[in-house]
């Protein structure tokens, strides 16, 4: 065991059991999966993406490229979990990825021997022929061989949530800079959110031995976090990664709510996706240590120096028995000192600089480079070159430090390009890269603890000033302020073997050289050609290194070569979290009719129409096919009486002295001339001349109208009216409101409809008082209702609107009365077929692509007044020869069914795209005619009545000769409507 007997921030009183690749292991509360694996001397944790190289833990944070795990079992398994960020819990089950049959013996490691063939861009060159092999052979092979974890292939049953938060100040990162910023801001009276991806606040303070105000840094961090937790104006969000910066001070953040719990409560989501609106932001996301590339630098046991300090200081684990260091800066030496203090054996410290001396009692090689390593499944030795020659050093852990890259990621999300700072040899955020954001601490290149504390306090004081508050007097606690001493050094050249840059995507310095040779030299081209920086870690440890290698090859400086950029998300976000409450029934609201319960009692079949659940059929015993039910319901309406719930039709109540003026503007036909107590059919156009919607307009009073719209267009029409009254004609004295939900509405249609309705209403509804297209306010059982004599079936028909709370009671009453007359309920199938028999329009015809003229209602566009869309509806191309016109179709010889969307061709014409002359929009079987009928658009259709044309549906393989006919198939003179 590599666990130290004391120290660290693990809780030795809470031992935990977990398993890795089926092996049961022990750890402690406060461990990550990575620290617990290292404590169990497990160094080999995964196989690489492309070459299946054995890999170990590199880092101790979210930048980890290697230690990706498959967590959990069965359909709840999660792939690509970074062991370095996963908190350990009792019973955690982890498995390594991308290996078969086992981690130590992986068959596909043969890929590594084939590496000469698998360089950058190999698939562009290798798998070119024969063409058919790509889909059948090459791609399946590559997909099997390459890859990370695997999905379960089953539905994700986990609960995800989404949430919104608002604050004055969002502090991203809870290290010394972030804690100081949050504390200063909160003490100054700001509403503060402090988010950190770790489960403990403190950032590097938890991993270092620095002191703040005379106490250990980790203790100071815990103390500040406790003070913040006690403040009402502070929300602490541990385990929360701010993943993206967006316009107007909005940020996306992923909170891991229950990934760390052995037995989470049922109500807890796995993750919550936050949208945070912040007036100001302080980015204090710290920095990420960068590796140095050298031959075979990917062996398990080669780690970042900062990670070695994290495991030693925070988790009390020594990652090796005999540890060596390779550094170009003082951090390597600090690591050696920390390790010595913990009793570790230091093999050697290799420093690329010549002018340094050891800071303690450890062997130091100055002006040296690590030129190679050995140990197939774990590091055994390193080869060191220096001026005096080469030597081999036995070691099982090599800690590498190439300096630090500030975490500039979020500052790139709105096109900010980081700028190069020569003195620290690193990119820092551009000024004002994100409006409202300040950057403090290591994220800004201020690496010492003192600098971080000061910068955090200062940034918060500036924010307080911005927001009109007074900054509290702040004492910066005493802390180290060591200068950066670093000699830029990126990669060891001239040694044998591959030197890895991007460990997750298996990109080496040779791949960058290949990109250079083949002239993919711009940073963006190099990235895409080699895939460097394109894995789930987005090149957190590799981008700058790749840039440096390209700079060397092109003999330019790094800033001349290019800059690095990062896109959201900072770390991967599960689609389940992004789509929280957007799956299944949560995708859209479900709306139910007032008569829904009754329809279900009657055994109706339902379909979803937009957000509404509407009955399509009311089958009766013995009916085995939908057509039987539909035909019976249609015959019932045409012979006795049928009732149907039409509540979803949009209803808009319009009132005011200028109501009629507005309606004349929005309807193509004139509504101001409509008499009180009358209803008129109307059509609205868009300004481009195309039909927007049709419906009815009833005038209940001089200044009071009620409009109906198609169910699907209700919200569009309403917004259109708002546009006309607010944007075009705000001077009009008119108010309107959607009353779709306030009124339940039923259609009672058929020859016996008046019998039914007259028994129901308290008033006289004789044909004299309520003729066709009349409306009136009536009472039913003392309830004020509205009665409209309008029809969508071609039969004598009434619509009754009743306040919605009485809708179900009225539905039951209507049903009983209809049954007594030999009628009953009908569904959407019959409703639709009845309207097709009569040539009435729906949005199958009114798609937004056709004018009123094309729809056969061009005559409704009033010549006497202006209306929206009038001018452009008369453009020459829309009124000239060859325009589309809606017509009816009937089969010439027996036809089973028309085909919606099928093309129409002239007889003898070649049936190819471009020759089509129209298409079928709606079709049904007409029981009245006992054959199928359709509506269709056809070029110059109205002048082609009687012509035989071809209907062709290539998708369904249907071809039939049809006759062009009038749209109205039943009662063409409309006699049944009247009387």
């Amino acid at each position: 065991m590599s666990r130290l007997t004391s120290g660290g921030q693990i809780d030795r009183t809470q031992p935990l059991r977990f398993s890795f690749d089926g092996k049961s292991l022990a750890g402690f509360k406060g461990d990550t999966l990575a620290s617990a694996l290292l404590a169990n001397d497990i160094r080999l944790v995964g196989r690489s993406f492309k070459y299946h190289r054995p890999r170990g833990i590199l880092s101790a944070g979210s930048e980890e490229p290697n230690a990706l795990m498959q967590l959990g079992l069965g359909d709840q398994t999660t792939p690509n979990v970074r062991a370095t960020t996963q908190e350990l819990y009792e019973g955690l089950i982890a498995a390594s990825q991308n290996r078969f049959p086992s981690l130590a013996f992986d068959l596909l490691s043969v890929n590594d021997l084939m590496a000469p063939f698998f360089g950058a861009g190999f698939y562009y060159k290798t798998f070119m022929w024969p063409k058919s092999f790509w889909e059948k052979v090459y791609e399946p092979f590559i997909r099997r061989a390459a890859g990370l974890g695997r999905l379960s292939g089953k539905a994700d049953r986990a609960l995800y949530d989404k949430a919104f938060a608002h604050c004055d100040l969002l502090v991203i990162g809870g290290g010394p800079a972030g804690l100081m910023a949050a504390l200063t801001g909160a003490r100054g009276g700001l509403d503060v959110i402090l988010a950190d991806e770790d489960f403990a606040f403190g950032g590097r303070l938890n991993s270092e031995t620095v002191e703040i105000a005379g106490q250990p840094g980790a203790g100071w961090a815990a103390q500040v976090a406790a003070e913040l937790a006690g403040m009402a104006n502070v929300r602490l969000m541990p385990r929360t990664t701010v993943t993206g910066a967006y316009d107007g001070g909005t940020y996306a953040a992923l909170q891991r709510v229950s990934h760390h719990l052995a037995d989470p409560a049922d109500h807890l989501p796995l993750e919550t996706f936050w949208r945070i609106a912040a007036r100001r932001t302080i980015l204090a996301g710290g920095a990420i240590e960068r590796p140095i590339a050298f031959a075979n630098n990917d062996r398990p046991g080669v780690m970042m120096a900062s990670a070695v300090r994290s495991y030693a200081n925070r988790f009390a684990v020594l990652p090796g028995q005999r540890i060596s260091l390779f550094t170009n800066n003082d951090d390597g030496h600090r690591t050696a000192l920390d390790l010595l203090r913990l009793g570790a054996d230091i093999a050697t410290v290799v420093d690329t600089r010549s002018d340094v001396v050891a800071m303690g009692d450890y062997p130091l090689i100055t002006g040296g480079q690590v030129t190679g390593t050995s140990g197939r499944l774990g590091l055994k030795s390193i080869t060191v070159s220096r001026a005096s020659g080469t030597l081999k050093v036995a070691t099982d852990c090599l800690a590498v430090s190439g300096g630090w890259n500030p975490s500039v990621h979020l500052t790139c999300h709105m096109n900010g390009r980081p700028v190069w700072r020569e003195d620290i040899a690193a990119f820092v955020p551009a000024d004002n890269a994100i409006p409202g954001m300040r950057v403090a601490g290591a994220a800004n290149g201020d690496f010492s603890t003192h600098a971080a504390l000061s910068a955090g306090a200062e940034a918060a004081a500036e924010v307080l000033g911005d927001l009109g508050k007074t900054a509290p007097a702040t004492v910066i606690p005493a802390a180290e302020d060591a200068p950066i001493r670093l000699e830029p050094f990126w990669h060891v050249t001239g040694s044998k073997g591959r030197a890895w840059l991007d460990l997750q995507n298996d990109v080496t310095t040779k791949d960058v050289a290949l990109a250079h040779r083949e002239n993919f030299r711009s940073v963006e081209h190099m990235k895409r050609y080699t895939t460097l920086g394109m894995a789930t870690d987005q090149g957190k440890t590799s981008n700058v290194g790749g840039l440096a290698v390209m700079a060397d090859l092109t003999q330019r400086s790094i800033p001349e070569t290019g800059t690095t950029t990062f896109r959201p998300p900072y770390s991967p976000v599960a689609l389940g979290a992004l789509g929280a409450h957007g799956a299944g029934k949560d995708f859209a609201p479900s709306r139910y009719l007032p008569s829904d319960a009754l329809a279900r009692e009657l055994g109706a079949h339902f379909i979803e129409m937009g957000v509404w659940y509407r009955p399509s059929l009311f089958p009766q015993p013995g009916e085995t096919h939908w057509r039987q039910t539909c035909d019976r319901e249609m015959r019932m309406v045409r012979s006795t009486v049928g009732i149907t719930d039409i509540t979803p039709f949009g209803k808009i109540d319009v009132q005011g002295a200028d109501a009629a003026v507005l309606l004349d503007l929005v309807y193509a036909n004139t509504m101001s001339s409509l008499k009180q107590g009358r209803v008129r059919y109307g059509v609205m156009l868009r300004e481009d001349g195309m039909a927007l919607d049709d419906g009815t307009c009833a005038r209940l009073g001089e200044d009071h109208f009620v409009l109906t719209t198609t169910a699907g267009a209700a919200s569009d029409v309403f917004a259109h009216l708002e546009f006309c009254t607010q944007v075009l004609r705000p001077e009009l004295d008119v108010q309107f409101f959607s009353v779709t939900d306030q009124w339940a509405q039923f259609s009672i249609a058929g020859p016996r409809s008046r019998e039914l309705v007259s028994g129901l209403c308290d008033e006289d509804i004789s044909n004299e008082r309520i003729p066709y297209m009349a409306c009136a306010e009536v009472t039913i059982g003392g309830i004020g209702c509205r009665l409209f004599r309008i029809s969508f079936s071609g039969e004598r028909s009434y619509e009754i609107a009743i306040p919605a709370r009485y809708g179900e009671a009225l539905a039951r009453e209507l049903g009983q009365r209809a049954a007594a007359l030999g009628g009953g309920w009908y569904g959407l199938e019959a409703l639709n077929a009845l309207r097709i028999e009569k040539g009435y329009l729906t949005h199958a015809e009114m798609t937004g692509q056709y004018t009123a003229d094309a729809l056969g209602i061009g005559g409704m566009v009033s010549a006497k007044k202006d209306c929206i869309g009038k001018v452009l509806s008369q453009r020459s191309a829309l009124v000239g020869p060859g325009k589309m016109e809606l017509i009816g179709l009937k089969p010439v010889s027996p036809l089973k069914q028309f085909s919606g969307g099928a093309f129409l061709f002239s007889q003898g014409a070649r049936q190819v795209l471009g020759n089509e002359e129209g298409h079928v929009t709606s079709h049904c079987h007409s029981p009245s005619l006992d054959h199928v009928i359709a509506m269709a658009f056809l070029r110059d259709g109205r002048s082609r009545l009687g012509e035989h044309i071809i209907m062709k549906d290539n998708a369904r393989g249907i071809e039939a000769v049809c006759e062009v006919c009038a749209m109205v198939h039943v009662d063409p003179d409309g006699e049944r409507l009247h009387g």
Partner: protein
Amino acid sequence: MRIDCPNCGSRDRREFQYLGTAVLMDRPAPDAGEQAFVEYVYFRENPAGAHRELWLHEMGCRSWIVAERNMGSHEFASTRLAADVKRGAK
């Protein structure tokens, strides 16, 4: 993105529906001719800078709003109720 609704204050962009240029406020006179309407309906400037445009606070107070937004930076310079702007223009 956040939008300042003159009635409701700063709100998430998702509450709003975008329509397009505020040129749509100036509907040509009925007798202005076909070309005037073609330009009104179809012809648009696409400046990499300041742009006056119409938004509907659809999931809020349902006001049409005239916003001045920088199309490069997405920064809003101002937001006013379209009805107020239109009345003021008269």
